[in-house]
């Protein structure tokens, strides 16, 4: 099982990797700096049949932000990619963002930073069920 971690903050990504490794959440984490890179990596992964099980998505990123990524994801031709579960991981505490995130059906949950053992395990159990 692998996750796709999308965030422009390299420090956050490093921490998240350590946490996922430490808490034994998944074997593998694919990283992407922004939405566009994430889409590209997903398409590649889909081709090689090695699609991650979930996407952890930051909202505020350069080049392609989280919202644009979600929109593009919805329009993706590959069904498995289109139906990937997404957890939005953001430092925003805006309720507007939360409301907006819920309008995307791939979004399974919204997690406020920082990532913790608890919410990582929550994602894992959600995926296993």
């Amino acid at each position, binding site marked *: 099982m692998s996750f796709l971690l999308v965030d422009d903050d390299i420090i956050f990504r490093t921490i998240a990797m350590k946490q996922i490794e430490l808490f034994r959440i998944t074997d593998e984490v694919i990283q992407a700096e922004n939405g566009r890179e994430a889409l590209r990596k997903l398409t590649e992964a889909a081709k090689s049949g090695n699609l991650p099980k979930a996407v952890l998505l930051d909202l505020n990123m350069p080049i392609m932000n989280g919202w644009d990524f979600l929109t593009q994801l919805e329009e993706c031709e590959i069904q498995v990619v289109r139906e990937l579960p997404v957890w939005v991981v953001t*430092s925003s505490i805006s309720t507007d963002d939360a409301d907006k995130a819920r309008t995307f059906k791939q979004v399974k949950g919204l997690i406020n930073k920082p*990532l913790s053992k608890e919410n990582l395990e929550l994602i894992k159990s959600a995926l296993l069920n």
Partner: protein
Amino acid sequence: MLSDESQIISESTTRASLEGILEQTTCQNTKDNLSVALKQLKRDEARLNYLEKLVVHDNDATIELDDKGHILFMNQQASHLFELSEEDAIGKPFFKLTVEKDYLNQVLDFHKTTYEGIPHSGETFFQGLDNITFLGHYVNRPIIGNDGEFHGSIITVKNLTEEQNKREALVRMQEALRLQLEVSLSFANMIPKNCIPVINKAIDSFGSFFDLKQVVVYSNTPINDSLWLAHYGEYNSIQTFQFTDAHLLWLEQHLHKNTYITEKQLSEELLSSYLQHSGADRTPHFFPLINQGEYLGFLAFCSPTNQKLSQILLDTVQLFANNIAGAIQLFNQDKERKVKEEIFEAFSQFSSDGLAIRKDGRYTYLSPSYLKILGYSHDEKMNFSREELYNLIHPFDRAATKQFLNNAVLERRKEVLWLYRILHKNGHYIWREDHFSFIYNDFGELQETFLVARDVTDRVHKDEELNRKERQAQALIEGIPDLIFRLDREGKYLYYKARKEELIIQDKSIIGKNCKELLPRKIALEVEVAIERLFRSGEMQMVQYELDLPELGHRHYEARMVLSGEEEITALVRDITSDVESKKEITMLHSAIENSPMSVIVANQDLKITYVNKHFLTTSGHTKKDIIGSKQPVFKSLEASDDDYKRIISKIQIGSPWSGEILSENKVGEQYWESVLVTPLKESAEGGTQFLIVKQNISEIKALNRELRKLSFVASKTSDSIQIVDADLHIQWINQAFTNLYGYTLEETRGKTPSSVLYGSDTNQEDVTSILEGIAKQKAFSKVMLHYTKAGDAYWMDCNFTPVFDHEGILEKYIIVERDISQLVEAQKRIRSERNLLGTIIDHLPSLVFLKDLNSKRTLVNQADIEFQGKKNASELIGKTDYDLYPTHLADRFKKQDEEIIKTGNPVINSEVLVNHPDGKKWFLLSKIPLKSADGEINGLLGIGKEVTDIKEREIELRESIGVIGDQNKRLKEFTYIVSHNIRSHAANLHSLIKLLELSTNEADRQEYLSMLENVSSNQLKTLDNLNKIISIQGDTNMDLEYIRVKEIVVNTMEVLQPEIIRSSTKIDLHIPSKSGLYSNRPYFESIVLNLCSNAIKYRNPEVHNKVEVFWTEYENNYILKVKDNGLGFDVERYKDRLFGMNQTFHNHPKARGIGLFLVKNQIEALGGSISVQSEPTVGSIFTVEFQKLKS
């Protein structure tokens, strides 16, 4: 080559002898040599034959001559060329074939060829076919024998006729040019009077050059007494040929039209006449001599051959003719000039006017008469210097003269006249009038001054004398009480003496005006007739006329007009108004008495009758004849006794008047009653007392009184009040109803006028006037009047006036019947006042109120509407439509609204209207309600406009402030978001790292976490710094403002960005006026420029050469800063919401950060400006910043 050929020819003659030697010789060696030579010879022979054939059939004519120059042989071409059969030709001397004139030259050449043995070639004219000369190229090759002797020659001739024209043209062209030059030069240097020899010389060279038979030049005007200017050629008799006038006219007419006339165009008669008399055997060609469009004569010549004239000849003759025409013109002009010179000479010698010429500041000529004027003889004083002459001018006039002339020259005047005093030799000053003519060159500089001086001392003195006399006459005239006018024959005023109020026009002078313009037409006509008669007879004319003068009113004048000069008259006008008036009065009185309806008789002291009027004669039946001078007892009643009569007479004789009624009898015995008044008149012209007797027939009145009594019975019974008044409006009778209504009895009112009885304080004076007018017309009429009773109560009465006339049609009385209509009038008045009240209310409503008809024309407006429209009276708006009052778009809207209301009947209530009023924008709530007539039809609409500008403005203000609040709110939200997001993200990282640290057991991991912690905290500090910056912007309400030079800042910014610019090789274009500047906050402004420019450089499109342009433009109320690049660009539609947000980037660019624009936007807004952007992906972006001008 030639020498080879001649050798062959000479050798060929020895072939036979060679063959003979060959047969005879036995010597093998010689034989061999000979056979070689013979072989050679035979070969040469064959060649010769060939050459001979060539010669015979050659295109060139070839002729062989013997040593005498006689023809031995000629080939076909030659015989064809010269039209000679070989037989005819042989034996003839060759040079007979050339044209005569070249013969000698050819002979010389021939001999040259002969004696020197040198081949010779050249060109000459040959006599050929049809006797036509042609140009041929010849080569003359001598035949020299072995003996070195001359045996003859071979001549080849090539016909150059075809080439001739070309070559001729070339040669002649050169020649013509030379000729033209020569002729022009000679004319240019020529003294005009020598033109004939020059023309002659030119004609000679022209004629000989072209080998013309005859050339003549004929001038229209005689030059040196001759019309034939020049001739050349063999026909000398040409000079005896006389062109008839008809010929000359014909030639002039045709030559004017054409460049020249040839044989075919020449009139038959002229041609035959010319050929017959001139001795010429050829037709002449005529060329016109024309200079500057003027026909001066013609040039005629006969060509040497019948060939068509070559173009070169035509061109040359044309040129030649022009030159001759120019010469003739010069000659003519010279003649004119000479005449002028003679006149000038005569003038300067003999005129009494002096003449002076001034050039370059000094006098170049002073005529004898000029000196004479100053008292000097010609010999005595030849040259006055300018200073000397100047010093002679009277000291009073010196400066003025100098200034006047300087000004005249400055103004580039051509001619001026100047009067001044100058010292005569005799020591007295004379008056001189000088006429100056100034001649200027092309540059407007004064070149020469011509001065004609005249001694006008006598004239000046006479003028002075005349002035003095005129002044005396003037004083005399002033003394005469009559008005005086001097007029010219046309009736124009030359002079007048009158008081202002006595003139028709008083605001300006009448001098120079024509009396016909000023006087009424009828009077003007009389004046005109009188003037005409005056000039015809010379006798004084009198005209009487009347004028209505503005101040004096109607006046009578008598004008006596006399001649006061050849072309002028003087009119003495006397005001005879009082005379005329009194005379008129007498006439009037006389006619009144004469035509009086009463009998008037005047008797003297002895009662002898001296005057009776018409009426007396008609009533009494007397004639003037039998009554005047008689002592008829005209005032004795038939009923009276003699004693009674005597008593009356004695009474009147002591000066008392008597009146009474008498019974009279006319001549036919009819009796009638008369009332009589006898008045003694004292101090008559005759000394004694006179008696005026006035009698009136009262028989009818007596009868009428009886009638009246009957009428009054009826009148007394009616409820209408009735008055009977006499013609002078004195009440004679009233009825009972009158008494009942007004409370007056008949006794109280009789003899009084209705006005004095019935009118009161509120009786309308206009009504009274109209009653008087009605009565004056003597017709029946009615009028509503306010009458007062004796008790002072007022009643509205409808008064009917009916005139009553006597049997002679003279107005006798009026019957006035009145009816009380007070109630009706009061009711009307009440309606009117209610209407007034309503009007007053409408007028004082603050809203605009108006009524419109179905065509949207205003029929009523209130005061508020009048004031709003900037008018003074309702009349300025009534009948106007909205198109007259509002701009078209608004009027269109109103019109549509009106039509809708009229169509549907539905009112429009409170529609909002914005009107541009001179006082500013005005908001109205406009309601329009349809108006319905009694039968329910819509016949117009009522409009009410309520001004709500204040409310509306407040509403707009409110809306704006809501916008401001919303804006601030949005910014606050954004800020909160940024704070929460940016700070939280660092905080989250810190939290996570600390958690990891806690859990970590591995020392290497711990080290990693610690270094990350350091990173995170430093990032957090940076974020806090940025936020701090933004907070400081948002909270900064009192920034330091200073004057900033825009260019300086942008240039400095570019220096800061220099490394980046170089690295990216960006081209920077600044479009900033160097003096532009504004009051602003320097750090903010610098930051704005830096951010926008660095973005433009940073986000370049790697595909194209990066270019950044910065524009700065100042407008009336604002400044615009534009930063334009051709970089990556972005989709504005997509990103517009977050463009200026924090941490937003749109470029696929690794360096994109996203705090810059957010900062810039905040700074711009803090400076009261705004920012907008246009962009397109891969094309570029334009950021536009607008700063409002600060009001210092």
